[in-house]
C-alpha cells in the first residue's frame, strides 16, 4: 500500500515518526515535493480565504498527492501533543476542512493526537490506524515505538545547530554542512512550518547565513531552560509552539551569546498576534525584529529588513564589514 504524507505543517516536526510507523507496517511512504510555486498556486485556489498561509500551502501539498497513485493520504488531526497544552485550532479541523474543500481528495487516514489529559485515546487510535495494514497489535505498537525512537534521534541532531527540518533531511540521508564563517549569532523564532519551509519563509534562515550569521532556532536550545524561561510569564501559555517561542525568546534575551532576535509570523495567525506581542514586550536586552509574511512574493522588503538588522547589530557591536566606519 502507498501512503502519501504532505510536506507541510507538522511534517516539519514529526515526519520521521510517521514515516517509520507506516514503513514498519509494510506501507510505502510518498511525500509531496518541497513547497514550490505550483504548490502555492494550487493551495490558494482551493483553500478557504481566512486560513493562514501555511494552511493554504498544505492544501497545495494534498492536491499534489491526489494526482498520484496512492491508497491513502495521511492527515493527522493534531489537538494536543503534550499535557494541558494545545495546537492551533485550525489543526484540529484540518481533515474536515480538506474533505469539505477538495472534491478530488483520496481516502484519508485520520489520526487524532490529543494527549492533553492522557494518551489512552491516542493509543487506541494508533491501533485503529495500524489495523488498516495489519491485525497484529504487537507489530503496530512496535512500529509506533520505533517511530518515536527515530524522532528522538532527529531531535538530538538539533543540538548540533541544525533546525528540526534540516535534522529530518540528514535523517533521510542528505549531506548538510553548516558554514563555519559567522560573526553574528541571531535567534530566529516562528512556527516551524513557516520558518523551515523555504518558500513560505522566503528562505530567511539561508539568507541570514549568507550574511555571515549563525542562526539559532528553538530546537537548538536547551529545552529544559526554555521551559524555565517560559514559566516566567504570569499565566501559562497553553499553545505548545507559543510557549516554546516565548521561552526561547526569553532564553535568547538573557544569554550574552545572542546578538539579536527575529520573529517570523504569518499574517492572519491567531496565536502569533498574541505571542508576537508578548515577546516584543518581554524582550528587553536584545534588538528584536518582527517580520510578517503572507502570500506576496516580493522579497525586497524581507531583504532590506534583514540587511538593516545585520548592519545595525554589526555597527552596535563595532564589527564592520571590510572597512572602519566613523558614523552611525
Amino acid at each position, binding site marked *: 500500500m502507498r501512503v502519501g504524507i504532505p510536506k507541510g505543517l507538522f511534517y516539519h516536526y514529526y515526519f520521521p515518526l510517521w514515516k517509520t510507523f507506516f514503513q514498519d507496517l509494510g506501507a510505502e511512504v510518498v511525500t509531496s515535493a518541497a513547497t*514550490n*510555486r505550483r504548490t502555492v498556486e494550487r493551495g490558494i485556489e482551493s483553500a478557504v480565504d481566512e486560513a493562514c498561509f501555511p494552511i493554504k500551502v498544505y492544501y497545495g501539498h494534498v492536491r499534489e498527492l491526489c494526482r498520484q497513485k496512492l491508497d491513502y493520504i495521511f492527515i493527522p488531526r493534531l489537538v494536543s501533543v503534550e499535557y494541558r497544552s494545545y495546537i492551533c485550532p485550525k489543526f484540529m479541523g484540518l481533515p474536515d476542512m480538506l474533505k469539505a474543500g477538495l472534491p478530488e481528495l483520496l481516502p484519508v487516514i485520520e489520526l487524532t493526537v490529543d494527549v492533553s489529559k492522557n494518551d489512552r485515546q491516542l493509543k487506541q487510535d494508533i491501533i485503529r490506524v495500524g489495523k488498516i495494514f495489519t491485525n497484529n497489535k504487537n507489530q503496530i505498537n512496535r512500529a509506533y515505538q520505533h517511530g518515536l525512537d527515530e524522532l528522538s534521534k532527529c531531535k538530538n541532531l538539533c543540538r548540533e545547530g541544525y533546525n528540526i527540518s534540516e535534522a529530518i533531511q540528514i535523517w533521510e540521508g542528505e549531506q548538510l554542512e553548516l558554514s563555519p564563517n559567522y560573526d553574528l549569532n541571531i535567534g530566529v523564532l516562528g512556527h516551524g512550518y513557516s520558518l523551515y519551509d523555504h518558500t513560505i519563509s522566503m528562505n530567511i534562515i539561508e539568507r541570514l547565513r549568507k550574511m555571515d550569521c549563525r542562526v539559532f532556532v528553538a530546537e537548538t536550545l536547551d529545552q529544559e531552560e526554555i521551559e524555565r524561561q517560559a514559566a516566567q510569564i504570569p499565566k501559562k501559555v497553553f499553545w505548545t509552539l507559543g510557549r516554546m517561542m516565548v521561552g526561547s525568546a526569553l532564553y535568547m534575551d538573557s544569554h550574552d551569546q545572542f546578538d539579536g532576535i527575529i520573529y517570523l509570523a504569518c499574517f492572519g495567525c491567531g496565536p502569533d498576534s498574541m505571542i508576537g506581542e508578548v515577546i516584543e514586550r518581554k524582550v528587553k536586552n536584545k534588538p528584536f525584529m518582527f517580520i*510578517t509574511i503572507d502570500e506576496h512574493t516580493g522579497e525586497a*522588503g524581507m531583504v532590506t529588513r534583514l*540587511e*538593516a538588522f545585520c*548592519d545595525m547589530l554589526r*555597527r552596535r557591536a563595532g564589527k564592520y564589514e571590510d572597512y572602519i566606519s566613523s*558614523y552611525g
Partner: protein
Amino acid sequence: MNCYLGVDIGSVSSNFVLIDNEHHLIKKVYIRTQGNPVKAIKEGFSELTDEITQQGITINGVGTTGSGRYLSAVLLGADVIKNEITAHAVAAAHLYPDVKTIIEIGGQDSKIIILKNGIVNDFAMNTVCAAGTGSFLDQQASRLNIDISDFGRRAVLSRQAVRIAGRCGVFAESDMIHKQQMGYPMDDIIMGLCEALVRNYLNNVGKGKKIESPVVFQGGVAANAGLRKAFAKILGMPVNIPEHYDVMGAIGAAMLAMEKMQCSRDNNTQFRGDEFILQGSFKTSSHECQGCPNICEVVCIKRDREILAYWGDRCKKWENSLNEKNHAV
C-alpha cells in the same frame, strides 16, 4: 573636483546626489521613478552630467540604496550597496549628531529609526499595510482632485482638523467621503487626513518605540507642511526637517561610498563611467525558468547585447552562469 555619487531608487522617486570630500552637496536630482527605474536612472544621471563636465568633477565612488539598489548598482557600478535604514541614519546623524529619532516616510514604506550615540539602536518598518505612506496621500489627493504639492499648503490653512479614522487606508477613505458629504470644509478634511496618517504611523510603525527629541523628519513626504504640523502637534515636540529632506537616502549612500573609498587601500571605484550609462541602451526582460517546479521569474538586464545581470532565480543557476562566463573571459 573629486565627488561621490549617491543614488536612491525608490518606488516613487529616484534621487541622485553629488557630494564633495567635505560632505557638501554639489548637486541633487529628484525625479519620479514612474514605474521605470532603468529609465529613471538614465535620466537622472544625464541630468548630473552637465554639472560634472562644467565643474570638471571626477566621481571617486558610488553608493546605491533604495529598493532599486541592486539594479542601479548594475547600471552604474557601485562601491557600496546599502539598505535604506543605514543610509538614512548615516545622513541624518551627520547633520544632527545628537539625533535620537528619525521619521522617514517614503512612497511605499515608512520607517522609524532610533539612534543612540549616533548609532542605529532600533528600527521598524511598516508591515504589510501601506496606509501610513506617501502613496496613500497621493491617492487621496487625486481623489480630492488636488495636486499633491498643494496638499500641505491647503492643510495648514485648516483651523479645526476633522477626525478621520487612521487605522486602515480603506476605512480612512470611506470616513473621508462621509465627512465630505456632511459638508466639512476641504482644508479641514485634508488636515484630518494628515493627522490620521500620523496616528497610523505612530500606532503601526512607532508602536512601542520611545520617541525622544531631537526628532528628524525626512523622506519625500516631509515636503508636506500639513504632516510636519501634525507630527509636531501629536508628538508634542519640535520636528526638524533637513534642508535636503527629499534626498537624504542618496546623501547617506554617497557618504558611505566616500567612507569606504577613503578607507580602502586601492582607490579604484567600480563606477562604470558616463559613457557606459548614457551611450548604451538598457533593456530588461524576464522569462519563467522551467528548470524546476518553482518556476522562478528570472529577470535579465542587458546593455545592448551584453548581459549585465540576472536575478530572481532561487537556485542561482542563472546568476552563477554569468559569473562563470565572466571568469572565462
